[in-house]
């Protein structure tokens, strides 16, 4: 490195750090202006590729390569901060084994083929069995990618077998929101973290999983503010270290805890009568069960929670009665503001819809809602589980903008926007993820009616629960065909019949939607390697091949191609031809069509150009009289949400009961489908680690992250280990009724499970813990439970010598 470059880089680093420290981007100018200091490096904004926080980075590019990353001080989400994954995100593009050419499995080996042949093969499979074709997508799809797949399947093939991996992470949050407010996604935003007096973590670990968000609260304490953190969890984590109260509960018994708080709010007469009488109604489960249940009276609700005395909750959950009273006392106060955060602990739950609706109910019953700092907020793990999977509606029962395939009026609206013949969209709900893979794994002769599966931007071979049942049989069946679009080899690509190399992150244009309803945009900055191509191009190219073969579904009602895209000024651009793909901004064209769907549920999106200018905008984004576009931070609150009726303080304008009211649910505790017993005496919980993002297909290629966390392990309590004559570092076999896995033990490690529990992270593709997990799912959301099943452990060998 020559002196000039070294000096420039140091100046740039100091400028970035100064801007963040002073919370003022302009402070950087006093140090240096990186953008003018070295003209060889160009800078542009992008959201981070990793989690659902949606931090913004500045990406430095030189000679066609990403060479530097800085936290973006102009971004409201992260204000220049990044976590350990974020500041390494640029390196995710440069692993040695990027997929660079299409590969076809022949005689057991994957051999390179041309894109032309790959597209032909996919078109052959679709044409041969259009009803047996399924698309498995992702919360890492960009918004245009998910939208293209959605339109191709539901608008083109009249096939609703499209579902995203967000089914495995967020579906219960969705059903919880729908059952409570009649519309998905949090009402609050990250600003709540700057205002709350109490932060409650419900079974999540934000210190590791959403560290930049968590740092907003910790930083407030550093400034002398008093913010109380309560950690309600099944094991101690890094988040626990920052909490004033740690409430350890038995798996599944969070249901009892929430009911216990509501019991006491009523018993203590500290519930917010005025708020409830004005803005809420009560619900309970119906028979037969339905998402929106049945309306009940307050007296019936009170009767329902009557059983959940602090002593009864202690009996069920193990949380001391005094701590239940402490929680209820806090919620009973009107002088403080409380934010509840949750993620997979509440969503990956066979009663996930129930616990989601109960935590919303605690906030509603106590009136801790609708003011900055008073919010029940689910966080997402993926960068666009909200923006793509949920808002574009790439779930098997949804259409874009919160519409349902089963709703005739919604189908008609979608057919109008897509200019399709009436009746094109199929009214029958498609397969959710577990069902989709079950049908793919089942032989055709036994009714397995999914013959071809296209997977984009996700790794089900590592993430599906009970992998031996839901993935392996399909791979082994010669009549089934698996197509995988990805950027690196994974357990899923290795099993695939056809592998398609994909562009990633700043190798393509993109848009994401984060956990706080913020839609974000970026432009392509570098080229993808080899023959890797955008996922959206792949989908459009297949659609065009089918169109050219005369498949009627690939045309709109005027006979135009389903993905008819014109350049400004007119003239069709053949974007299915890779050499012409970048003649026009395909993202802009698709997004401008998609945003027409966004008004129904008041999730209004601004024109594409507004997102180019901004570090994201939170919907609904509404045009003002002066032509500017204003985002909404607090939904349903009269002081900020433009759709709240004039004069109202709170207005749940999508109320399931159509009366402006949110629903407070009574849902009882029920034990999980599988609990420890004599044969399998331990709880097995799975989850993530700070250093690796999900299945680590990207982060394992980043050397500092790989070195920091090279392999999975099993956390055990010291006393459990001693009882089994196991020492720290020993190799043990972890078994469930579904499989077995050998792992090194970590006693007194980063996380501390209680006696009777073990924890295994799922990032390690060499140690697939999902061969052991349970595929049982929530009855409404169809989301499986990765957090609790029964396991046993025995020692295989002692720790390897170093």
């Amino acid at each position, binding site marked *: 490195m020559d002196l000039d470059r070294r000096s420039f880089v*140091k100046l740039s680093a100091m400028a970035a750090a100064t801007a963040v420290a*002073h919370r003022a981007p302009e402070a950087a100018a006093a140090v240096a202006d990186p953008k003018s200091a070295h003209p060889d490096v160009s800078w542009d904004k992008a959201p981070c590729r990793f989690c659902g926080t949606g931090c913004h980075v500045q990406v430095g590019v030189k000679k066609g390569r990403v060479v530097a*990353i800085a936290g973006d001080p102009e971004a409201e989400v992260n204000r220049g901060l990044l976590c350990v994954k974020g500041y390494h995100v640029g390196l995710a593009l440069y692993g040695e084994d990027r997929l660079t050419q299409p590969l076809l499995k022949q005689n057991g080996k994957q051999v390179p083929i041309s894109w032309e042949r790959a597209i032909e093969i996919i078109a052959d499979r679709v044409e041969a069995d259009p009803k047996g074709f399924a698309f498995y997508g992702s919360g890492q799809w960009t918004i245009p990618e998910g939208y293209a797949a959605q339109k191709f399947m539901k608008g083109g093939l009249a096939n609703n077998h499209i579902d995203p991996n967000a089914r495995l992470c967020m579906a219960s949050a969705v059903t919880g929101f729908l059952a409570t407010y009649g519309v998905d996604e949090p009402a609050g935003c990250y600003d709540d973290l700057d205002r709350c007096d109490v932060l409650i973590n419900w079974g999540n670990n934000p210190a590791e999983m959403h560290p930049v968000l968590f740092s907003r609260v910790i930083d407030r304490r550093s400034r002398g503010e008093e913010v109380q953190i309560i950690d309600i969890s099944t094991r101690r984590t890094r988040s626990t270290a920052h909490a004033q109260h740690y409430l350890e509960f038995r798996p599944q018994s969070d249901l009892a805890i929430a009911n216990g708080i509501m019991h006491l709010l009523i018993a203590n007469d500290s519930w917010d009568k005025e708020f409830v009488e004005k803005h809420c109604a009560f619900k309970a489960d119906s028979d037969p069960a339905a998402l929106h249940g049945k309306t009940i009276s307050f007296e019936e609700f009170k009767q329902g929670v009557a059983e959940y005395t602090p002593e009864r909750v202690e009996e069920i959950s193990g949380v001391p009665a005094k701590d239940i009273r402490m929680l209820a006392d806090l919620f009973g106060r009107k002088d403080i503001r409380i934010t509840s955060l949750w993620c997979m602990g509440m969503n990956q739950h066979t009663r996930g819809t129930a616990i989601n609706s109960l935590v919303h109910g605690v906030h509603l019953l106590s009136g801790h809602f609708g003011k900055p700092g008073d919010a029940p907020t689910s966080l997402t793990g993926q960068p666009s589980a909200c923006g793509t999977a949920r808002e574009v509606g790439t779930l098997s029962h949804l259409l874009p903008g919160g519409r349902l395939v089963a709703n005739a009026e919604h189908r008609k609206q979608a057919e109008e926007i897509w200019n399709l013949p009436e009746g094109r969209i199929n009214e029958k709900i498609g397969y959710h993820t577990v069902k989709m893979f079950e049908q793919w794994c089942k032989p055709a002769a036994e009714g397995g009616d999914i013959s071809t599966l296209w997977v984009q931007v996700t790794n089900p071979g590592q993430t599906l629960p009970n992998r031996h049942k839901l993935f392996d049989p399909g791979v082994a069946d010669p009549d089934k065909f698996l197509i995988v679009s990805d950027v690196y080899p994974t357990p899923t690509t290795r099993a695939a019949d056809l592998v398609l190399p994909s562009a990633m992150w700043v190798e393509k244009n993109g848009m994401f939607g984060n956990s706080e309803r913020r839609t974000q945009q970026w432009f392509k900055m570098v080229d993808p390697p080899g023959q890797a191509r955008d996922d959206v191009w792949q989908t459009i190219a297949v659609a065009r091949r089918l169109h050219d073969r005369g498949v009627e579904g690939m045309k709109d009602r005027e006979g135009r191609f389903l993905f008819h895209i014109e350049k400004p000024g007119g003239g069709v651009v053949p974007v299915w031809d890779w050499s012409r793909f970048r003649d026009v901004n395909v993202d802009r064209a698709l997004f401008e069509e998609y945003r027409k769907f966004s008004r129904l549920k008041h999730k209004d999106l601004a024109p594409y150009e507004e997102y180019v200018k901004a570090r994201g905008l939170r919907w609904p984004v509404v045009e003002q009289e002066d032509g500017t576009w204003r985002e909404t931070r607090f939904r349903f609150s009269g002081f900020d949400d433009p759709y709240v009726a004039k004069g109202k303080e709170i207005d749940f304008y999508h109320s399931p009961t159509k009366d402006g009211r949110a629903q407070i649910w009574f849902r009882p505790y029920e034990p999980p489908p599988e609990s420890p017993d004599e044969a399998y005496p331990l709880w097995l919980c799975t989850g993530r680690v700070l250093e690796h993002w999900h299945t680590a297909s990207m982060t*394992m290629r980043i050397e500092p992250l790989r070195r920091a966390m090279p392999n999975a392990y099993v956390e055990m309590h010291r006393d459990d280990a001693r009882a089994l004559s196991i020492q720290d570092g020993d190799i043990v076999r972890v078994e469930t009724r579904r499989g077995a896995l050998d792992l090194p033990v970590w006693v007194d490690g980063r996380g501390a499970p209680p006696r009777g529990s073990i924890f295994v992270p799922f990032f390690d593709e060499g140690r697939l813990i999902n061969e052991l997990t349970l595929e049982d799912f929530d009855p409404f959301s169809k989301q499986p439970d990765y957090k609790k099943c029964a396991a046993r452990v025995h020692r295989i060998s002692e720790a390897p010598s170093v």
Partner: protein
Amino acid sequence: MPILGLVLILDDAEPKTRGAVLDSVTQATDLDLGEPAEHRWPAVLEAPDEAAAEHRIAALRLIPGIATVDVVYADFEDRLEPVSVSHASEEF
């Protein structure tokens, strides 16, 4: 040679406490401090390699009086050698 932009967040904005903490930090030759804002100090760390950088940041976090260290800028042009992946099972 990685160069990282850091923000050191001190526990206490009191000048006397800050002074004591920063004395221990400024003795290092690998760390340049910038102009502070209350309890937040911008800094630039230059380390011989990745592992040294990670160790240094971890060591900074352990200094009494430093609440946390945030990394806000990373230059890795020198580190653009492709990384090969060994399956974890080989590391047993």
